[in-house]
Every structure is written in C-alpha cells, then in structure tokens.
C-alpha cells in the first residue's frame, strides 16, 4: 500500500510539476438552481411534473478543452395530490412525491473555443438516489432506490472577473430504472476557488 502511494505521488509530481510552469489549472465550484420538468409517459393526468432543480458541481479545469468533475444535486421529479377511493377501504387524500439525488462524474468540453469559448457541452454518468414518499389512508411511507443514470447539458458561463462567472444551463437527465427523463433550466454561478 505504501509503495502504491509513493508511486502515485511520484507520478503526480512528474506529470503536474513540469506543466505548471507554463499552464494554469483551477478547481471551479458551480452552483445551479432552476426549474425542471419531468419527462415521462406516465398516463396520470393529476401528476404534477413541474419542480425545482438544484446542482452542486466541482470541476477540474486544465489548460485543455476537456474538463472533468463531480456533480450532485436535488431534483424534484413529480408529485401527486389526489383523493383515492379504494373498494372496501374508503376515500382518502393521497400524496406521492419523488425526488432524486444524483452522484455523477462529469465530462465537459468547450466545443467552439474560438467562436464561443463560454459554451461547454457536458456529459455525465453515474448513479441517482431516487426517493419516493407516500402519504395516504392515515399512514406515511417512503422508499429509496439507486439507479444508473446519465445527463447531457449545454452550459453557458460568462466570466465576471478572474474568479466568478454566471450563466445558464440546459440539462437532460435520464433515470434508467424508471425509464424517465428530466429537463431542467438552471441559473449557474461559478467560483474559481483554487488555482495552480
């Protein structure tokens, strides 16, 4: 284990140090919030598919066009509030809602560096924690599950100064296990908190 650590340190130093003389690396914190619409072929007219979508992301930005990072967030997927009538049981107001928390590896690229350097195209892949909450007939219940998922996004970030940038992001999420998608439009705030 010690040998492996030593090896990794040596490799890291040998790869980063020479480049750092003529290049610039940074770590960016990106926070987003906005509106989301759940894309589903669920045939229930009473389901509310509109919700809030928040994103928290750390991106490693090297001198290259390709950037990588980690993303999490909170997505309200849908909610339902209706009166249910069950034979032999009776009527009750039932509330169901679902939200997800993604943990994704993000790959981002400036695709038009000359023409539009503020535009990044992102692809993310990872897992999503799906949480369902139900309330009806006098009792509450909730359940969580994990699904594989991916997302694709277009992000426009306009620098305000050396450290800060603001912009917007249009993003599509896919949740494999429930075969649904989610479209979001977020306002993004970016902060370059470490440079070397």
């Amino acid at each position: 284990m010690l040998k492996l650590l030593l090896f990794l340190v040596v490799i890291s130093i040998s790869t980063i140090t020479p480049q750092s003389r003529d290049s610039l690396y940074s770590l960016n914190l990106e926070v987003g919030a906005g509106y989301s619409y759940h894309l589903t072929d669920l045939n229930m007219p009473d389901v509310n598919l509109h919700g809030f979508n928040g994103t928290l992301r750390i991106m490693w930005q090297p001198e290259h066009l390709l950037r990588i990072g980690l993303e999490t967030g909170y997505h309200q997927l849908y909610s339902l509030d209706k009166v249910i009538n069950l034979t032999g049981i009776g009527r009750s107001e039932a509330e169901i809602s679902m939200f997800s928390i993604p943990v994704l590896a993000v790959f981002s690229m400036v695709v038009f560096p000359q023409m539009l350097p503020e535009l990044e195209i992102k692809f993310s892949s990872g897992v999503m924690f799906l949480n369902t909450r139900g309330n009806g007939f006098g009792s509450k219940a909730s359940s969580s599950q994990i699904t594989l998922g991916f997302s694709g996004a277009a992000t426009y970030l306009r620098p305000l100064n050396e450290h800060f940038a603001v912009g917007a992001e249009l993003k599509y999420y896919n949740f494999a296990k429930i075969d649904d998608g989610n479209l979001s439009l977020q306002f993004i705030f970016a902060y370059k908190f470490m440079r070397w």
Partner: protein
Amino acid sequence: MKKFTLILCVGVLMLLSSCDNGVEVLQPIVDPSGVLATTDPVPNKSKPWMEGIYTVESGSSVFGKQVVLKWSNDNLSIFTSKNAGYAVLKGGEIDSVFYFEGYWRFRTSTETGVLSLQISKSEGGAILTAKDSTGGEIVLRGSFGNGTQPGNAEVILRFLRPFSDFVKQNKFYILAHRGGGRNSDYLGVSENTLQIIKQSEGYGANGIEIDVKLSSDGIPFIYHDDDINLRTTQKGVLWGNIEQFTWNLISAFVTLKNGEKIPSLIEALDYIIEETSLSFIWLDLKSSRNEIPIVTEIVLEMLKKGYVKKRDLQIVIGLPSEDKLNNLVKVKDFTTIPTLCELDINSVRKANSKYWAPRWTLGTQTPIVLELQNEGRGAFVWTIDDPAFIESFITEGKFNGMLTNYPSLVAYYHYTR
C-alpha cells in the same frame, strides 16, 4: 486497440439486446358468436373418455408426433413435448358433434395461433354421448393457423390409449411457478395474479407456487421482486422497496405489467378456493421480515374454508432459509403448521414439514425421497424447465410433484407414463 474497441462494441450490443424489447404475444381470442354459441356445454360424463394419449396424424409441425388431451374445468388442454407446446380450447356439443375453439402456443417461444377441432358423430361423437358409454376410438379433425387469423393447416388427432393405471392411481403435483407463469413467458397476464392463477390449469398445472411479501402495515400480498420495477409493473408514481409501503398505497398506485392489481394473500387463496380446482398451493415466503405468524393465521383460516367447501386442497408455507425456519419454531405448536422445507432433511424433521423440496441440481435423491415418504411426508423438486431433465426426473425419480415454468411439458411427460 482495435480488438478492445470490437469487444466494447459487442458488449454494448449484448447489453442492449438483453433488454425487454416490448415483445407482445397476441393470444387468439375465441369468438363468442362463433360456432360454440350454437352448442350446448360438453357433458361432464363425456370428458373422461376424451382424455388420453393421441397420435398426431396431421399437424406435426405444431403438435409433434403424440399429444395428451386433458380436461380442466371447462377447458380442454392439449400438451405436446414439442417446444413445450400446449393448446387451450373451449368446447361445445350439438347432436353428438363436438366443437372446440381456442389457441395453441409454444411456451419456449412466442409462436401462437388459432386452433379449431371437431369430433364428428361417426368418429367418436356418438360414443361420447351414449348413455352407457365406455369410451372408444375418437378422432379430432380441424385446422390451425399462425397468429390471430384462422388458419387452414390440417390437424388430425387419433385416440391411442387412455392414461395408464399408474397415472390414474398416483397423484402427481404439477406446480406452476409464480401462479402459472412468469412475465417473461408472455402469457398475456402477469405473474402472481388472480388472472394467471385462473389460466394455470389450462397450462396443465394442478398446483401453483406463489410469492408472498409483507406490506409495511403487515398485510401479506402476492409479489415476487423486492422493488417496484418495470419488469413486474407498469410505470406508476410509486417506486422503491415495495415492502416499505402500506397495503392501501400499493393497492391504489401499483398496477402490474398487464394491467392487473396486486392481490393480497387472502384474495388469492379465496379466489383459488372459489374459482379453481387447484389442489396444492406453495407459498414461497419472500419478505425481509417475519411473516410466518400472520401467514399461518391466514392459511389455517383458508384451509378451514376449503374443508367446508369440500375442496381437495393443501396450502403449505415454504421455508426457503434458516431464518424462516427459526421464525417458524418460535410459533406455538409450530409442528402442526403445514410447511414445505427447502433445507436439509434434518430441518424437514425439525419443522415437521409435510413436504421436502430440494433444488433439482441435487439430482433425484431417490433414497432420501423414499425415506421421507415412508415417514408420511412428500417431496417436490424445483424448478425444472429443461425437457430432458423433466423427462428423466419423472421417469427415474420418485418425487410427488415438480415445480416448473413449463407445466404443459411436465403434464405431457407425466400423463404419457
């Protein structure tokens, strides 16, 4: 690098092709305004004389060389060894001529088609309706097709012999998995539902295995998987571990793959007693919690109901693991609870299980099976789907029954003994 890319591409293709592509098998529907609308129901006294082994003189592309004819309630079923094939027909009689309309299906594929058969007065009809009939030569003639359209391919089935004395005198339990079939068998109804239970006898089963889960408020219900997913259910608003939801929420918001509702254990057992002739129910306990006390209470109540209704019915609680066995022995008078133990024979004796059910890969285990039978217990083997193994376990083994996804195939090999 090229090799790696190739392997990656093949892997991705295999992953994509393993997905359910929405295969839909259309079951031909009997036209209620067809020929059967003008006939009387088949007399009950005629049915046993039709049952037996028939030679296929025409139509071997679907029915092979030999078939079994067997009645279950109002359905006449035909079983063949070819592709685990079967046919389910409704029948009627008028002026000593018998008409049958229904469909055939290969269980191992999605092939299906319409089937029409007839017994003329001179080729068995008169014998079957005679007041003091003792049976005789019967010939069924008709046609079959592919898909939902009526076909014109000829089929002729000629009576060869009745079931053997061994078959008549020894009850063999043909137990259909998940109430009659899995969703992956594309039977038009979902696994573990009242609808599949209703169809199971037509497939050749005289018993079923159903999976029991427990809702968060302690109601046992019939469902196989741990979570609500697209394999078992239609897209809905509830997702996650199904046992974490109350029964009312499950009832209100979960719809099974083919549009059915999840039945509670009480609903399922009540339905079996009232609407079927099934004589054996194996409750496969799937809950992550201890469901044995509540399930025992329901089973004992339903056995009483079956007794009052004069039903030949056994309901046993499966013990698939040490945990379940330990839960059982905590119950007062546990040795009087009807159970089926999947563990070793010492556990069978400890639980005083009525039945032992070893996995088929352990072989026929004839000495142990005979030993338990001498103790007044029975033995079932699970879950066999391979035709060669089904045949060898039936001919060489001494089991009292078999759990399978292909009950028609087990029926064929059992009734041709």
